[in-house]
């Protein structure tokens, strides 16, 4: 409890992030590798070192999937400023495959953590299917929309009837007489 209080005191002041200098973080600088092949070579070199390789197998035996592990390696390399996040995403696949091959060679049980039979649909096909779906929905909707809405009048407000132009409106004279204004009476008063 006491430790928590001290940690709260040492915490950042609101707005501190706005004035802190973040320009020198490795991932803010230009990456070390701008070529995919070179970046992959770097990853393979780091993984193939014996102590690291056995650490990988140890993790795989402890039910960490190959996908998770390769993501960790790639992200840590990105945090060190080796390559960009785009490269990390692209290189995760080859790295996962490489780890799986090595694990097979060393008779280590592993789980890929990925659905291998991944169905790839190009963007054009998805857009086309979306259009088709919308068209189908419209086709289904039309017969229902054409049906007459019986309760339409009931749902409208009472004042809506006044808006109707077809209704007869009394002339001004009639309105005056209805209100009790007569010309004869006015003259008598004067």
């Amino acid at each position, binding site marked *: 409890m006491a430790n928590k209080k001290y940690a709260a005191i040492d915490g950042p002041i609101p707005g501190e992030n706005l004035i802190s200098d973040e320009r020198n973080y490795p991932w803010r600088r230009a990456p070390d590798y701008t070529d*995919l092949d070179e970046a992959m070579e770097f990853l393979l070199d780091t993984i193939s070192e014996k102590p690291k390789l056995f650490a990988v197998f140890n993790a795989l035996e402890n039910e960490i999937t190959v996908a998770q592990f390769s993501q960790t390696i790639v992200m840590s390399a990105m945090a060190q400023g080796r390559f960009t996040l785009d490269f990390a*995403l692209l290189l995760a696949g080859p790295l996962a*495959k490489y780890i799986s091959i*090595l694990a097979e060679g060393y008779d280590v049980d592993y789980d890929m953590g990925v659905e291998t039979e*991944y169905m790839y649909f190009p963007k054009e096909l998805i857009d086309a299917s979306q259009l088709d779906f919308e068209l189908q929905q419209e086709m289904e909707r039309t017969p229902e929309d054409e049906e007459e809405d019986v309760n339409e009048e009931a749902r409208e407000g009472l004042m809506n009837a006044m808006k109707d132009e077809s209704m007869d409106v009394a002339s001004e004279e009639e309105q005056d007489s209805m209100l009790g204004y007569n010309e004869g009476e006015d003259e008598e008063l004067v």
Partner: protein
Amino acid sequence: MNLNKAFKRSIARYLDGVGTKEMDNASEEPFTYTLETLEAIADTVLEERRTAKKKAAKKASRTKKKTEESDTDGE
């Protein structure tokens, strides 16, 4: 999209052979680390282990023979 999902998707695409094609299209030079080349590289790494295994097996068989010979001599 969630970053974890994006990674999983990327890995799955590569394993299905779609990812390599996309990388080829994106860059000027084709991506060298295809599924086949990776297997070849892994083979070279695993070769050391195989030779070490063979050597260990040979050593074990030799020591076995020696112990058997020494046992028979003793008798």
